[in-house]
């Protein structure tokens, strides 16, 4: 286990922001703190790198209580991405990315190499390297912010509404890249968002908070199908259908699909979401087919087969 919060509380001027919050984030896991504004999610996040000191309880990383560590050394080992990027306006892209390597006293060559690698991975063109942040678009600035957080290859990444300041189109595309980024697969990530779709798309587990307390912590499926309280149900109500389309995979529907196979069908992966499968049909594909992992048995379907299978799957879950 990487990060553990034990009954952490924090108040500001008699207002309780976080109340006895406990959770664990496993190594390589992506935990998303979800909730409306003022629910204490950002405060919780900032206590992990000691931007905010808890009043009570403790935060343990790799078995060590961080309260007794040097805060500066601690922070140099934790990547931090902010909503409005927080780039230094007087530093170039290169200097911004090199901040932590410099604090860690890397040599110039190593720092420059790492900068170039990261810029390539994050699709930032070379010529940006000597530009200042204000010369870049919002999406590009956010990439630089991400590169800066990743520069020293920290094992932990904290992200505070990282895509919050971007327009919808940019946000969707950057989120997709983010999901695909090899660099992030090995990292333990805690991310704050108020965007339910984003949380369901990126999270391994979601920690839903309200009024400084955890309402439910679990996988997206658990939140959808085993909600801990009415609050959880209400919170997701307006987007429930699209969330269900997004978290349900073709593999989940196997038993509800008819036994048929057509050679003309387009082959897709079994972990394709129903949402993405519907998008295939919308783009003109008539039939898709996939196979289960174990038996390599194949089934094909058209849009009617898919929707009726999905409906049966839903009915079954709601009765559980």
């Amino acid at each position: 286990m990487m990060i553990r919060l034990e009954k952490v509380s924090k108040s500001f001027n008699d207002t309780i922001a976080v109340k006895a919050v406990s959770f664990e984030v496993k190594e390589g896991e992506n935990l998303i703190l979800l909730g409306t504004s003022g629910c204490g999610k950002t405060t919780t996040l900032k206590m992990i790198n000691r931007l905010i000191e808890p009043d009570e309880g403790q935060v343990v990383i790799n078995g060590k209580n961080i309260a007794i560590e040097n805060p500066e050394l601690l922070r140099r080992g934790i990547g931090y991405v902010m909503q409005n990027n927080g780039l230094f306006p007087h530093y170039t892209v290169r200097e911004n990315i090199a901040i932590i390597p410099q604090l860690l006293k890397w040599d110039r060559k190593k720092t420059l190499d790492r900068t170039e690698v990261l810029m390539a991975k994050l699709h930032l063109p070379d010529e940006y390297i000597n530009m200042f942040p204000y010369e870049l678009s919002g999406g590009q600035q956010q990439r630089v912010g991400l590169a800066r957080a990743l520069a020293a290859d920290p094992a932990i990444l904290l992200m505070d509404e990282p895509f919050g300041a971007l327009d919808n189109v940019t946000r969707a595309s950057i989120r997709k890249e983010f999901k695909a980024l090899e660099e992030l697969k090995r990292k333990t990530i805690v991310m704050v968002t108020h965007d339910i779709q984003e949380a369901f798309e990126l999270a391994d587990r979601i920690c839903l908070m309200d009024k400084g307390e955890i309402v439910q912590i679990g996988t997206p499926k658990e939140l959808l199908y085993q909600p801990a309280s009415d609050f959880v149900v209400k919170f997701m109500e307006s987007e429930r259908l699209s969330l269900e389309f997004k978290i349900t995979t073709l593999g989940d529907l196997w038993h509800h699909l008819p036994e048929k196979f057509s050679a003309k069908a387009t082959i897709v992966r079994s972990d394709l979401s129903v949402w993405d499968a519907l998008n295939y049909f919308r783009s003109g594909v008539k039939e898709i087919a996939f196979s289960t992992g174990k038996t390599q048995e194949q089934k094909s379907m058209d849009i009617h087969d898919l929707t009726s299978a999905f409906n049966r799957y839903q009915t079954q879950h709601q009765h559980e």
Partner: protein
Amino acid sequence: MNEPQQNLWQFMSGESDKLLNQTFQHLGLTFISLFLAVAVGLPLGIFIARKRKLSGSVLAVAGVLQTIPSIALLGFMIPLLGIGAKPAIVALLIYALLPIIRNTYTGIVGISEEVKEAAIAMGMSKMQVLFKVELPLAMPVILAGIRTATVINVGVATLASYIAAGGLGEFIFGGISLNNTNMILAGAIPAALLAIILDAVLAAIQKMNVKKFRKLLYIFPVIFLLLGGFYLLPKAYGSSLTAGFTPEFMGRQDGDLGLKAIYGLKIHTIVISDAVMYQAAYEKELDVISGYSTDGRLKAFNLTILKDDKGIFPPYYAAPIVRVKALRKFPELEGVLNLLAGKITDSIMTDLNYRTDYLHQTPERVAKDFLMGCGLYKSAKGGKKGVIRIGSKIFGEQYILAEMYRMLILGNTDYEVATKTGLGGTKICFDALMNDQIDFYPEYTGTGLLVLLKPDPKMAKKIAHDKDRTYQYVSKQFLQQFNIRWLKPIGFNNSYALMMRQKQSKDLDVNSITTLQQYLDKN
């Protein structure tokens, strides 16, 4: 002064040594104080940006300091720091402080919270946040503050000459006292140019690319110190005694020039304002000063007058000078003003001055006591027949005279009175009279002759030592040239005099200017 017709350029090239020296002193004063103001103000600004609760009170104190009139501030400094460079630098520092503290504070507070949070979240220490993020980002604002402070300092530094700290003020205030426009401009133009040039240079630096900045930051203090170092350039020759002369005295034939030419006096001289000169002599900052023979502080500070055994100081009998038009407009005026004629002797005047300058009685009270003593005081009639405007120069005696005239006019006529006291110098007073802004003020025959009329030197020499001939000459010339009348003299003779502390005078056995000169030659 010898050739009144000389133009500005001739004056400046003739005095180029002095001008250069004063300019360097001016730069030096400006930058030493600026360097110190940055050294104090920058950390203070950073401190209050950290402890914002303190910002209000710190800025308020700096703001209040800023509003103290410069002359008053220089005056406060003398008991604490004496005269010369130290008090001037401290006073300038105080003026420069507010813009530097305020802009440092504003600059740092104005940095976006996100950038600051990012810096901390990256693992920067407090010092790293300050030097890598806060100061570089606040620098344009801080520089704007330094720029403001520089311009303020160039201006205020002209006043430093009042307390013997040198600078271009020597020419400016000397020129005002001596009615010498060239001299005023020779000081004022370079001072204005300095302000404009320094402002432009700092503006350019402010706009420079942030990148180039970083190195420049280190060069800055060095440049400041180098420019400050100008002030330490060697001054005039030294001697065992130090003299403090007013700017006016420095430029006059019947002043320093005469002392050099007729007595051959060689003494280390600094220029100082008359307001602080006596006290400086008392506190042994100065040994010889150019005072006035009726000055109350003579008595207050135990000073003694050195005998003018070669007679270079002409008589300075005081009398009101009035515009002829005002005499016509206010027919009763002349009679009232002449009530005072012959009433005040040297010793009476010294005593009256002593009471204001040293006992700190108000001029009003001193004037009233005197008038009651000689039966001239009458309570005001409260008439409304027109307003008479009285002027006075900016020293105690003139305030007392102005008060006496005010009471006499109110008590004996139906006129009202407006006083415009404290006019900076002879030139300012006289210009006010010429331009119909005042109706009369007390003037001295010697000043009328040598400063306002400026006859050719031979002529001046012939009449300047005779009290009556001087009075007749100025009366006639003023009427012809300016349409201004000299009324009857008040009685006392307030001439220039060199003075020393009584004790030192006895110890050194120096009681005249000749013995002073002999003493200086020996030591």
